[in-house]
C-alpha cells in the first residue's frame, strides 16, 4: 500500500514536471542554505578548535592572586613575601595527590633578560629555567646537538639550549659549531657560564600568551640550575598542569585550587591561588560560534518555511484538479484514511526529493565556501539524516491539511465535479 502510494505520487509528479520542479525548488533552496551554513559553521568551529588545541587544550594555569574580600576595609596592601609563593612542597603534594588526574606539571622560572656574548658579539635572550614537562610542551625542533637530558635536570647541570636565531647572531653561518662550547650570560650583574648542548629551531610564537616582543629568543636551562643562579628557594608565582585525557577540566581546576587554598593558603591574610583552563575558553567560543551558526541557520530556515507553504499551496491545487479522481477512488472503496495517506505521501515525496537535491546542493555550496575560506568543511551524516527526517516531517505537516480536505470530500460531489 505504501509503495503503491509512492508510485501514485511519482506518476502525479511526472504528469506536471515543471510545476513539481518549481514546488521542489523552494524546499531545495531552503535545505541547501541550511546545510551550507551548517557546513561552514562547523568548518569555522573546527578551525578555531584546532588553533586552541595547538596551544594545548589540556593546559590549566594556576597563579597566585590577592584574595577577594567582602568588606573592603579588610583589605590591607602589602608586598608579596617568599612565604606567599607556591613552594616546591606544594607542587610535590599536588603531583602525589592528583596523580591520576594530572598528566604532568609544567614549571618555568623566568630569570629575565640576559645578555649572552661570544668574543665581541652579543645578543639578548630570555633566560628560562624549565623542567622536563615544560621543555616537552615547547615542542622544540632540534637542529643540532641534543636536548636537555634527565641528567641535566637531576644534576642541575649548567647546560643550555640556544635558538638558531641567537646562535646566528653570535656565530654567523657557522652557528652549528656552537654546540659543546661555553657561552657566557650576564644576569643582573653576575656572569654565568653555560655549556650549549643543542640548537633549536626558532618559531614565531603563535600563542595568544606570547609576549609582544618576540624578537628575544629563549635560552633554556634546567629549572634547578636557574634557582641555583641566585641561590633562591624553589618557588613560583604560577604553574601549569597538563590534565590527564578525559578529565573534566573545570572540575579539576576547582579541585586543585580548593586543595591548595585549604591546605596552604587558609591562614594567608592576602594571597591565595586561582586557576583557569583553556578548556573553559574553548567551551565559551564553541558556545558562541554555535549560537551564531544557529541564528543564521534559523534565518535560512525561513526560506524553508516559504518552500513548505509552496508545497501546501500546490497540494491544494492538485487536489482540486483531481477531485473526480478522488471521487472515483472513493466509489471503488478507498477509505478516507487511504485518500489522506495518498496525498500526504505525495507531499512527503515532493519534500524528500527536494530535500535530497537540497542536501547535495548545500554540500556543494558549503564545500565551495569552506574552500574559499581555506578551512576544511564536511557534512556530517547526522545533518543528512536530520534533513531527510525533517523533510518527511515537513511533508506530513504541509501535506496534512490538503490531504485531509481530500479525504473528507463527499464521494457524490467529487464524482460529479467538473
Amino acid at each position: 500500500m505504501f509503495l503503491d502510494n509512492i508510485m501514485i505520487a511519482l506518476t502525479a509528479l511526472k504528469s506536471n514536471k515543471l510545476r513539481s520542479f518549481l514546488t521542489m525548488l523552494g524546499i531545495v533552496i531552503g535545505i541547501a542554505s541550511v546545510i551550507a551554513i551548517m557546513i561552514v559553521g562547523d568548518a569555522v568551529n573546527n578551525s578555531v578548535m584546532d588553533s586552541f588545541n595547538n596551544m594545548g587544550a589540556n593546559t590549566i594555569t594556576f597563579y597566585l592572586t590577592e584574595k577577594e574580600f567582602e568588606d573592603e576595609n579588610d583589605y590591607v596592601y602589602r608586598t608579596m613575601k617568599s612565604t606567599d609563593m607556591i613552594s616546591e612542597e606544594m607542587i610535590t603534594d599536588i603531583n602525589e595527590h592528583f596523580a591520576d588526574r594530572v598528566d604532568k606539571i609544567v614549571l618555568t622560572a623566568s630569570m629575565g633578560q640576559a645578555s649572552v656574548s661570544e668574543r665581541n658579539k652579543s645578543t639578548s635572550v630570555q633566560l628560562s629555567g624549565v623542567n622536563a614537562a615544560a621543555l616537552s610542551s615547547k615542542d622544540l625542533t632540534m637542529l643540532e646537538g641534543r636536548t636537555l637530558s634527565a641528567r641535566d635536570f637531576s644534576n642541575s647541570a649548567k647546560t643550555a639550549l640556544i635558538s638558531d636565531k641567537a646562535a646566528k647572531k653570535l656565530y654567523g653561518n657557522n652557528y652549528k659549531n656552537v654546540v659543546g662550547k661555553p657561552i657566557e650570560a650576564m644576569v643582573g650583574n653576575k656572569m654565568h657560564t653555560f655549556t650549549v648542548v643543542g640548537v633549536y629551531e626558532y618559531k614565531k610564537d603563535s600563542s595568544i600568551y606570547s609576549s609582544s616582543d618576540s624578537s628575544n629568543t629563549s635560552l633554556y636551562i634546567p629549572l634547578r640550575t636557574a634557582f641555583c643562579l641566585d641561590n633562591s628557594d624553589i618557588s613560583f608565582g604560577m604553574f601549569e598542569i597538563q590534565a590527564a585525557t578525559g578529565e573534566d577540566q573545570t572540575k579539576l581546576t576547582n579541585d586543585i585550587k580548593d586543595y591548595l587554598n585549604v591546605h596552604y593558603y587558609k591562614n594567608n591574610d592576602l594571597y591565595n591561588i586561582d586557576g583557569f583552563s583553556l578548556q573553559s575558553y574553548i567551551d565559551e567560543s564553541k558556545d558562541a560560534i554555535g549560537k551564531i551558526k544557529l541564528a543564521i541557520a534559523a534565518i535560512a530556515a525561513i526560506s524553508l518555511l516559504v518552500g513548505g507553504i509552496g508545497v501546501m499551496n500546490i497540494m491544494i491545487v492538485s487536489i482540486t484538479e483531481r477531485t473526480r479522481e478522488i471521487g472515483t477512488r472513493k466509489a471503488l472503496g478507498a477509505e478516507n484514511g487511504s485518500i489522506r495517506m495518498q496525498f500526504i505521501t505525495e507531499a512527503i515525496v515532493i519534500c524528500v526529493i527536494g530535500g535530497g537535491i537540497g542536501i547535495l546542493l548545500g554540500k556543494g555550496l558549503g564545500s565551495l565556501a569552506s574552500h574559499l575560506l581555506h578551512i576544511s568543511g564536511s557534512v556530517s551524516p547526522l545533518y543528512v539524516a536530520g534533513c531527510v527526517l525533517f523533510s518527511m516531517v515537513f511533508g506530513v505537516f504541509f501535506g496534512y491539511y490538503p490531504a485531509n480536505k481530500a479525504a473528507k470530500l463527499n464521494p457524490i460531489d467529487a464524482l460529479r465535479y467538473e
Partner: protein
Amino acid sequence: MAGEVIIELKNIYKRYYVGQPNELEILHGIDLTIRKGEFVSIVGASGSGKSTLMNIIGVLDRPTEGQYTLSNVDVSAAKDKELSHIRNEKIGFVFQTYNLIPRTSALKNVELPMMYNRKSPSYRRERAKELLAMVDMGERMMHTPDELSGGQKQRVAIARALANKPSIILADEPTGALDSSTGRMIMDLFHKLHKEQGITIVLITHSNELAEETERILTLKDGVITGERRGAAYVS
C-alpha cells in the same frame, strides 16, 4: 425464477436540506427488491430521482428514512468506513464517463479496487490480467486511458468493476457517451457476463430501447416507482 435477495429497499426516502425552509424530498418511499443473477434496468427521465436512487443503491449516499439491506446486511446507518468497505467488496461501478484514473495503465486501474482491499500485489496483477483478457483488453493492458477509445475505456471500467467479485454491477448510463455500435458492444458484454457468469447487473438508463433488453424494467417517475414489467427480450 432467480436466487436469494441481494438488494432490498424498504420505504426509502431521501430529503435534502432537512429542517430548512427549502427542504426537498427527492425519493418518496421506494420499495425495491433485486435477486441474485438478475439483470434489472431502472428507467426514468432526468429529474426523476434516478441518480439519487443509484447513489443510495451504490452506498455512496445514505437514505434519510427507510431500510436498505444489501446481502443481508443493513447498510442504512453504516459509518463512512463501513460504506467504503461495502462499496469495495459488494458493488462494482460502471460510469457513463468511465472514470478511469488518468495517466495510470489499464492494468493499474483494474488493480485499484483490489489495492484498497489489501490484496497482495502478485494476486492483484494476475486477477487484473485475467479480467482484462475477459473483456478483450489483454493486448492493451499497459495503455493509459488517453491512449484508449471510449469503448475500450468502458471495457477496462467493467473489468475494474468485477475485480473484487462484487454482489452487483451498478451501471449508470454505461453507453451514454458512446456511439451506437460501440454502445452495442458494451451491452453485449453485459449480456455475456450476465448469461455466462450469472452476474447481477443493475442498469440505470433513460433509454427504453436498452431497457427492453433486460429481464425486468422498473420505471421511476418523480421519485416513485410507477411501473414494473418484464423486458421485451424476455417476454415469451
